[in-house]
């Protein structure tokens, strides 16, 4: 540094700057009061269809020991000792491309059973379609993806409950409790998204050739009722 630069550094050290207040409690309070909207990461995650056991085992260092494995349609739920690092992103980053229903069906190459009340269908990659609807006063994200294959993998740790259910006689899984992690894969099993942290409760169920996923702040009874209405 030349003389003038050194003088500027010296000047900076002598500026009358008020002492910084401790803002950490207020920051935490604000973040706590408005936790990331549970549907947003989900929406991103919409795109997430679960992956298979083989993939689950393919990256063991990231998730610790695999304790239990559930498979349902195109999704897998893996109980692990510890969750891997996962991101939380805004809905806008992860829903995919907004399309008309017809265009979305052409893109994913299967008939959509998602609620027709939604004006737009978001499509991520080539296999995950999602809509955002309101139900029971809540925002709910409903996604649909092929029932055969390996599209979505959910990783859950100890504090997330996984319960086997049925929706109109078809197998279903209910995930409730602590946040879990979701990862989406495309038809070619390429990683499409980083692991995403999901905070809402989730119902996964099979309906004919597709698997559906519903996420939101709903009770189990509300989620089952909504799933029944979609059938």
């Amino acid at each position, binding site marked *: 540094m030349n003389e003038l630069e050194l003088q500027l550094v010296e000047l900076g050290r002598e*500026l009358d700057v008020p002492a910084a207040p401790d803002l950490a409690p207020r920051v*935490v309070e604000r973040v706590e009061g408005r936790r990331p909207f549970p549907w947003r990461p989900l929406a991103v995650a919409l795109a997430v269809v679960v992956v298979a056991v083989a993939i689950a085992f393919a990256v063991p260092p990231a998730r610790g020991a695999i304790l239990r494995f559930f498979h349902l349609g195109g999704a897998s739920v893996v109980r692990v000792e510890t969750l891997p690092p996962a991101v939380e992103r805004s809905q806008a980053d992860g829903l995919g491309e907004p399309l008309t229903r017809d265009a979305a069906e052409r893109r994913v190459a299967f008939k959509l059973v998602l609620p027709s009340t939604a004006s737009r269908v978001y499509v991520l990659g080539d296999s995950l379609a999602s809509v955002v609807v309101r139900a029971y006063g809540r925002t709910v994200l409903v996604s649909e993806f092929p029932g055969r294959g390996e599209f979505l993998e959910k990783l859950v740790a100890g504090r997330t409950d996984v319960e086997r259910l049925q929706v109109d006689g078809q197998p279903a899984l209910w995930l409730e409790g602590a946040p879990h992690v979701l990862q989406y894969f495309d038809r070619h099993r390429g990683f499409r998204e980083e692991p995403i942290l999901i905070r809402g409760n989730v119902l996964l169920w099979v309906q004919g050739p597709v698997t559906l996923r519903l996420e939101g702040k709903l009770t189990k009874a509300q989620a089952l009722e909504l799933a029944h209405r979609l059938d």
Partner: protein
Amino acid sequence: MVDRPLDETELVEQARRGDLAAWETIVRAYQGIAFRTAYLLGGSAADAEEAVQDGFVKAYRALGRFRRGAPLKPWLLRIVANEAKNRRRAAGRRDALAVRVAAEDRPGDAVPSPEAALLAGESRRRLLEAVERLSDEHRDAIACRYFLELSEDETAAALGVRRGTVKSRLSRALERLRDELGEMP
């Protein structure tokens, strides 16, 4: 076995997963430099406080977009600096900075003669006044690089410009200051 303190990368990863205690640790580690940045760019303690709060809240919500392994400080400072500059624009003005009254009595310094102290104080005031007359772009570059003692890369990140832009702004700002102060380059 003794618990080792979490490093920054681990804290960020925990915060990404919703661990607010980890984020609180990060806020405490950086709120000092963040407040100083907001104050120097915005010029008001009240606005700086708001800018830092809003900045850390926004940063938490944007953690998903933070590139793993990247340095956290410049990323945080950029968010806080934006908040501070937005407030400055909204207010249409910025309070002038001031030199501490007790600047001549810094501990550890040899006691200067009254005349030397007077001259040094006057020199600092002239320099600060010259900095205050710079354009916002040049002044911000000076504030980040010299007052906050950020590196050129950190300055670039905090101001959201390229390193080359920082270098050229600093070069022009220094030239302007020399002209104002009647110094030789």
